[in-house]
């Protein structure tokens, strides 16, 4: 254990112009243990930002702060400023329900509800009352499934259970489910770690396409994946944000020693 490392300030381009989300001075604690140390980060619009780092470095924790998923964990405390456009999402006036309709999340393990494929995708629009009638709902569902690249595979069995799909299909169903609420930001927490290479490739292509309409934050433990899908990359280490830069720069010419060590596989 190297316990006495001076992490110092994050190197690279932390700030961007006109960000979709901006985080200032984020600290996260699990009971007494600090998981995130004073992180500043801007997330640009219609871009994919990847978060990489060794396991337990706090990248997932950070991701889950962006739509307050950590609220569901009793012992978790979050401080700092998290802004979505102009709204501080941790302020008292912000309701977590519409927030999550603006910042969607896709999890590591595909978790379709034990409902039909259609109902899975329609779940979000239904609870939020987004569709006025069945026609609108059908359109949202079909469009979301198409964007998730799943429609052609399931259009004949929309009313069969979503849990009957293959792992990769399930994950795309979960993405469709998230898209169906029309979020501005999609968080992805290692979305491919439970999938085989072919399914992974499909999801990666999908992420690339979704960039047109959404801002995407993806946590991944695979550096190759980060290199393939993201425009910016943030490197986390022991709860500190070490470096943020354009993906190409991070992988070809990292500024920080720790980043370089990680990229070159000295640890991880």
């Amino acid at each position, binding site marked *: 254990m190297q316990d006495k490392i001076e992490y110092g300030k994050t190197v690279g381009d932390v700030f961007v112009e006109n960000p979709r989300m901006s985080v200032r001075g984020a600290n996260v604690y699990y009971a007494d243990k600090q998981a995130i140390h004073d992180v500043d980060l801007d997330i640009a619009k219609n871009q994919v930002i990847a978060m990489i780092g060794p396991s337990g470095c706090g990248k997932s924790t950070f991701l889950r702060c962006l*739509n307050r*998923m950590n609220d*569901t964990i*009793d012992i978790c405390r979050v401080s700092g400023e998290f802004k979505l456009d102009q709204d501080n999402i941790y302020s008292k006036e912000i309701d*977590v*329900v*519409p*927030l*999550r*309709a603006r910042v*969607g*999340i*896709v*999890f590591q*393990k595909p*978790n*379709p*509800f*034990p*409902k039909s494929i259609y109902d899975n995708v329609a*779940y*979000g629009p239904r*609870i*939020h009352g987004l569709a006025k009638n069945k026609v609108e709902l059908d359109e949202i569902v079909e469009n979301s499934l198409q964007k998730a690249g799943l429609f052609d595979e399931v259009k004949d069995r929309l009313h069969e259970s979503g849990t009957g799909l293959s792992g990769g299909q399930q994950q795309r169903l*979960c993405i469709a*489910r*998230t898209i169906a*609420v029309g979020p501005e930001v999609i968080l992805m927490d290692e979305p491919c770690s439970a999938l085989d290479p072919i399914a992974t490739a499909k999801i990666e292509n999908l992420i690339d396409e979704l960039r047109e309409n959404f801002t995407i934050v993806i946590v991944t433990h695979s550096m190759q994946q980060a290199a393939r899908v993201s425009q910016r990359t943030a490197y986390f280490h022991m709860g500190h944000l070490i470096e943020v830069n354009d993906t190409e720069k991070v992988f070809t010419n990292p500024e920080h020693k720790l980043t370089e060590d990680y990229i070159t596989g000295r640890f991880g």
Partner: protein
Amino acid sequence: MTTTSIFLCLALLGFGFYLLGRWRAMNASVISGKLHSLPSFHGAYVAMCMFVPVLVVIIAWLLYSGNSVDQQLLNAAPIEIQEAGQLDQTKYLYSIITPAVQGLEVSDSALAAQVTNFQELTKRNKLIRFILILLAAVLGGLWGLLKIKPDFRARNQFESGVKYLLMACSLIAILTTIGIVLSVLFESIRFFNKVPLHEFLFGTQWSPQIAIRADQVGSSGAFGVIPLVTGTLLIATLAMLVAAPIGLMAAIYLSEYASSRVRSVAKPMLEILAGIPTVVYGFFAALTVAPFLRNWGDSVGLTISSESALAAGVVMGVMIIPYVSSLSDDAINAVPNSLREGAYGLGSTKSETIKQVIFPAALPGIVSALLLAVSRAIGETMIVVMAAGLAANLTANPFESVTTITVQIVTLLVGDQEFDSPKTLAAFALGLSLFIVTLCLNIIALRVVRKYRERYD
């Protein structure tokens, strides 16, 4: 030779054989080298060899002795007894002999002769029993001693013996079931010989009291089970109306909302509710809830019987709450957390998550919890015995008094019984119906739970 002294003898003998076996094993090892097993295993093996035949003899004796004494007595009995039906004979014999043996004075000289006869027979039997057991013990022990040699695998033999003993213990569960089935089945068959099955199943009149009158043939009492079934269902329904929503909501609240502080208070509360004996619930229902309901009914202009189905049903419902809540709690906790996160991540509120995601996912578990609770409610006895009525009313009105299957079993069997009357046998027929219904509910519920577990494991 009393039973206790026989057991004492056997224990001593067993210990003796153990020591003998050990001693012999040690000697053998001195003479010819290494033992396969420790000496104490040889001892234990010898003791085991002694107890196995003893056990066989005792079981055989238990099965044989009762009948043999009866038979020998009957052979000596007056002609008129011999000519009566077989069951009546034994019953008659015991009804006169047992009190006589216990020291009551015997006036009739013929009877006195029989009593002495009986006493002699029993004495002789006991002596034979003792000798047989002793013989079995000694022979078994000696046989075990003979087998001791240095390379004898005493430990393996002893351990496999123990294994068989353990297996026998686990078979008691099956024996119990068989015992239950046989005991209710036989008497029920006799009941259905007197009262036709269709009359029992479809009759709407239940008044078994008539049948005890000596001048009447058994089947003239009315044994229609329908009013009992409706009464049971009425009370069980009321109980479920209380227990299902409260128990379910309590489980949901405790597993999804409550802070650990609330949980640390509410869980013991439910455990207390579960720990209160049913007889206490019955007392509370009869002496507090029923009068309260009646007075309340009076004040709002309702006629509520003091033995209303409502009082029994409500209290039974409270009794079942912890049962429902702990089983549904298991079902809810078995729903993987990823589903919760998925729903929250889409922006659903907690209640939406629970109602639309967790509840459907936990539904099989919850259904089986409710089924088990229903089976509990149907089989519950003390609350209804104390708080529900005896009259078999065919009604769905919860303010009236109804009776249940269990209440009738108790009333039919408590107090003086005539062994062979349809009244007594009816209780077993009711018991059989109760057993079948609850068994079906349990099997369905357990099956559902099993299927459900497989899905998430």
